[in-house]
């Protein structure tokens, strides 16, 4: 498959890009922020997403979804990134769907149709500390009665306080097991914190949460592969969103270079800035290609996908970070003001950079996957 969007994907982009730009531009984020919105996203906007079938893009057709791939989901995420749109799309429609579809069984049958119909918001309760270390899960699931008892603490759980269900990774006797924990489970509490980018992420406590045996996603002790599928999909999704953030920041900055005058010239005439902008352009193009390659390999079910996913998260992380840093610097003083959007891009980039493993984590993963 060539590494560019085919006609169907281009059509999808042509419908999603103007939709997100009109319905959820940066002003939409500002409104939610200024009203101290407690949900973390607009349910009206989610209803509009649902009308377009977006929440169920990755849900298999048998479960009421569109059965599309990561390349298509990436198109939506890039626009979400470009417009800094607060949305549960990444957790619910990408990460959770990847896990549930991989696992199949009862939980897939219960939640996938509800995600596709826009009724269910799902959170991913994976991280436990300030840094992403999914191979060091301390949360435990012990057999109790007909099911399991969950104990532990989770952090950086996006939409955790409003999710209808949380996917919880826990240690079981013989490995890792994933659980679908409904929001009304006794002993489950979510403490939402406002982050630098105005999003809400929860510290989730599991104090003797009792779940039935059929809450297991997939099989007991066999959650490792499902977690891998969840991580690969979510990381690729964040990377796509970061390409959108970086592109949005770069486009605003290049426009500004063509408007702002100093020393009697447009500042875009200065070679010192031209070269930095051109360098940034190259980095963004490489990041975009890399993310597309990861999406393509995931969609093909290729063995090389895991490596490329880490490469994509790392590369998109570097490129988007450069875009927002150069963006603020090239905007000069007004780049430091709340009034200008460029600072909001810097904030969102920082939050996404950390989510599901930062640049350093993924560079390390690339070294390990290459045997050093």
């Amino acid at each position, binding site marked *: 498959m*060539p*590494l*560019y969007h085919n006609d169907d994907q281009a059509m999808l982009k042509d419908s999603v890009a103007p939709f997100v730009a009109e319905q959820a531009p940066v002003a939409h984020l500002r409104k939610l922020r200024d009203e101290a919105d407690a949900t973390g996203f607009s349910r009206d906007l989610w209803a509009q997403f649902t009308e377009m079938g977006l929440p169920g893009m990755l849900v298999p057709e048998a479960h009421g979804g569109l059965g599309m791939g990561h390349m298509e989901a990436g198109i939506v995420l890039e626009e979400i990134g470009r417009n800094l749109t607060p949305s549960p799309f990444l957790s619910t429609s990408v990460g959770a769907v990847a896990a549930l579809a991989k696992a199949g069984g009862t939980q897939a049958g219960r939640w996938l149709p509800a995600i596709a119909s826009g009724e269910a918001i799902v959170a991913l309760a994976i991280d436990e500390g300030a840094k992403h270390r999914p191979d060091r899960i301390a949360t435990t699931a012990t057999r109790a009665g007909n099911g399991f008892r969950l104990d532990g603490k989770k952090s950086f759980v996006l939409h955790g306080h409003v999710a209808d269900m949380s996917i919880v990774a826990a240690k079981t006797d013989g490995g890792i097991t994933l659980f679908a924990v409904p929001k009304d489970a006794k002993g489950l509490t979510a403490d939402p914190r406002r982050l630098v980018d105005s999003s809400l992420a929860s510290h989730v406590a599991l104090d003797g949460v009792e779940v039935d045996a059929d809450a297991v996603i997939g099989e007991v002790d066999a959650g490792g592969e499902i977690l891998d599928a969840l991580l690969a999909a979510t990381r690729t999704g964040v990377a796509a969103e970061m390409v959108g953030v970086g592109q949005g920041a770069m486009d605003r900055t*290049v426009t500004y*270079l*063509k408007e702002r005058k100093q020393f009697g*010239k*447009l500042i*875009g*005439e200065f*070679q010192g800035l*031209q*070269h930095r*902008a*051109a*360098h940034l*352009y*190259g*980095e963004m*193009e*490489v*990041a*975009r*290609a*890399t993310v*597309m*390659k990861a999406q393509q390999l995931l969609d093909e079910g290729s063995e090389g996908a895991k*490596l*490329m996913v*880490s*490469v*994509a998260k*790392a*590369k998109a992380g*570097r490129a988007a970070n450069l875009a927002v840093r150069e963006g603020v610097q090239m905007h000069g003083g007004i780049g430091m003001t709340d009034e200008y959007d460029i600072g909001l891009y810097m904030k969102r980039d920082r939050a996404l950079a950390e989510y599901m493993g930062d640049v350093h984590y*993924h*560079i*390390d993963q*690339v*070294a*390990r996957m*290459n*045997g*050093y």
Partner: protein
Amino acid sequence: MSDLDAFRAEVCAWLEANCPPEMREPVRDEGDVCWGGRKWVFKNDAQKQWLEACVSKGYTVPDWPKAYGGAGLSPEETKILKQEMKRINARSPLDSFGIWMLGPALLKFGTEEQKVHYLTQIARGEIRWCQGYSEPGSGSDLVSLQTFGEDKGDHWVVNGSKIWTSYADKADWIFCLVRTDKANKYQGITFMLFDMESKGVTTKPILLISGNSPFCETFFDDVAVPKTQFVGEINRGWDVAKYLLGHEREMISGGGAGGDMVSIGGAFAKAIGKNDHGELDDPILRAEMAAFDVDVFAYRAMGERFMDMWKTGRAHPASSNMMKYVGTELNKRRHELVMAGGGSDALEWDSEESKGGARARTWLRTKANSIEGGTSEVMLNVIAKRILDLPGA
């Protein structure tokens, strides 16, 4: 089975039957690379046999039309052929500035007669070409070139000199930018083709910091060039030159992908050693190598996307400048790490163990990557102007 699957199967079978085992070994030195031409001496029978097999199938230039020595493959088929050749580690049957640079220019600007004549020679590896672009006073500011062709009715008399002419001393013919109108800077250059054995042509290799001399100074003293031997229009050679530069930049950018080296950290694991956790026993170098590997894997994806788009007319016409900039900077970084990974062994200049100082010489050679074919700074200027549309650029 789709048509492309059938094609892949056919390619596999053909390669299996026609690519000699010796041609599936990694390239070890310059002699392993086949450049063809009138003076070419094949290193061994396998090199000759592989070239001839590819020539007969049109696989030296698979995407060129059959009438000009190619195989007439579509972009998808060409990609499959390259993938399958890579899979069996097949060497390139023929490296050639004719294929990479002059060919694309002739395909776009040449007459039918020129295409049949020159492209077929290039495809067969019969004529080795060199490029006469830079002059002592015209490097980055190429359009200021002064080599002059005086109009003598049915021919020009060319005087002047070129510099950095790659392998001019080994080439049979030259494609050369010659000023034919001193009053008109951009529209006063003609893209000429002539034989390096013409009377008045001399070459002088330049000793470089690598200790090698791949580049020459080339002098023209009253060289007579028939007025049929030009591409495009007289005085409009700059259009051809710019188009060709796009292909040259695309070619040079390929070095960024790193050829056979899958992962730099993996390649040095043995030399540097590992700790008990299986990590390179030099944590800071490991981190730099891993960060570099990320950029290489990323660049390979970029290369794939760029070629997919370039071959189907989807790429921005100036995007080869971006590829050249990113790819050459990456290759320079690679060889800094190769030297760091090799330690004092990599410093050896002529020992047998160092294969004649291969690492040190290659490291030094790569410093030219971001100068030749347009400097990194010129690439950034072009991106700023033509892609980002920045003012006054």
